[in-house]
């Protein structure tokens, strides 16, 4: 019986460094020259979160939410995009049996990224509000440590904050598909890195030959809500080179309310 499929979230043990301070390529970082830990220029990183969150955590910049400290953090318009283009690095293990498949998943990256895994490069397309799922079955070391480096680039149009501030600064950020408040609003000071970063969950998922993708659940009713119908549509991906004879199940159980526990 194959091991149960499984998902592992990668939310610890990350380090980060400014791209301009790292002398190695992504291929070298994930083969011959991996960072040895949070030693300069590398620092402990917060993932998921933003570049600025990592800089605040390491006290490289003051916390922008106290007093006028945001004024002491250089804005991307003045520093240039490279200043907030950061490497993020971590390692993970992933045991794979025969006929198992492994995906590397990013649920949100702002704004684009180049991924390196064990020396292999994968360029992720732009867009803050999109998921990325990469089949890394042929790249992972099934019985050892895997080296993952992600070079994260800021939005293409970070814009410049006019001296008068204003809603959305000079509105340049609106040319990208990204959150717009980051140039500042009447209730909010500008965010200096425009929320660049691996801002949502990173995970490794292992499945057998067939993978379930994006199920869609819809309910319809009749008899004045006394009867309900649950419509379930899914996508299935067979990654193997043979037809898969499958048994597909959907099971629905009522979640016990707070005071009731199933024994």
């Amino acid at each position, binding site marked *: 019986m194959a091991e*149960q499929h499984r998902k592992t979230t990668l939310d610890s043990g990350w380090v980060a460094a400014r791209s301009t301070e790292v002398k190695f390529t992504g291929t070298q970082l994930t083969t011959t020259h991996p960072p040895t830990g949070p030693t300069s220029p590398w620092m402990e990183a917060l993932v998921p979160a933003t570049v600025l969150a990592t800089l605040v955590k390491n006290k490289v910049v003051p916390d922008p939410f106290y007093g006028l400290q945001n004024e002491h953090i250089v804005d991307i318009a003045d520093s240039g995009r490279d200043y907030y283009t950061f490497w993020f690095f971590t390692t993970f293990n992933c045991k794979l049996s025969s006929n198992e498949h492994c995906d590397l998943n990013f649920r949100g990256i702002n704004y684009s990224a180049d991924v390196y895994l064990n020396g292999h490069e994968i360029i992720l397309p732009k867009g803050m509000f999109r998921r990325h799922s990469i089949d890394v079955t042929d790249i992972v070391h099934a019985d050892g440590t895997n080296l993952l480096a992600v070079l994260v680039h800021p939005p293409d149009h970070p814009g410049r904050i006019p001296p008068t501030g204003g809603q959305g600064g000079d509105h340049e950020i609106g040319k990208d598909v990204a959150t717009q408040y980051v140039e500042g609003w009447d209730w909010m000071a500008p965010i200096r890195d425009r929320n660049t970063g691996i801002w949502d969950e990173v995970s490794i998922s292992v499945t057998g030959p067939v993978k379930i993708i994006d199920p869609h659940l819809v309910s319809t009713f009749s008899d004045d809500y006394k009867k309900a119908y649950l419509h379930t549509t899914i996508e299935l991906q067979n990654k193997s080179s043979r037809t898969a004879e499958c048994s597909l199940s959907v099971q629905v159980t009522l979640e016990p309310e707070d005071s009731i526990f199933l024994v």
Partner: protein
Amino acid sequence: EHLQTQNLSVPANSRVQYTFPELIFSKPNLWWPNGMGKQSLYNVVISIDVKGFGESDSWSHHFGFRKIESHIDNATGGRLFKVNGEPIFIRGGNWILSDGLLRFSKKRYSTDIKFHADMNFNMIRCWGGGLAERPEFYHYCDYYGLLVWQEFWITGDVDGRGDPVSNPDGPLDHDLFLFCARDTVKLLRNHPSLALWVGGNEQIPPADINAALKYDLRLHPHFESKDENSKPVGDVS
């Protein structure tokens, strides 16, 4: 309570879409917004076994049986909502995000959203200049009964109605915008609290984007009006 198993073949190196025959529930526990009843949630588990391998994958999600309708009320010009056929007086608040450096946590979501429920709110509006909120945000809205009005990433100030007027045609890459919108819908669409997708804040998206969103988000004809006696049949497309 409800278990259904279907057998099917999936060709090598392929991707197929499959629809189960519908599951029928008599007198289901309905999901209601805060203040109108319980937020009954069911746990839906989908799993797939492959012959000669065993369990290949599984997926689970909390699901609430509810019907949410809304339309512009001619008398008031406002949007009138109904849940499970009952009109509801919307009491809601604006939401941008819980942290400007995107350091999100389940604990923070739970606290913030319970706070809204304790304030006797029944809706949260996710503003178009912020984010498409995350599954963890929606999980707690499901749990505490906060309906969600989720805007896409267009605002009047930045897209054509600001001073100076800028980006009258929205973002440069409309295909990218629609790709992100579709992927976001797939990420969030199973949450019972999701009540309304909205093109943007104080602005209608560019015509091509707006038309595509309206088309993609229309109620699929399959669900328009189910004939109770329709023969349940699996459908692989």
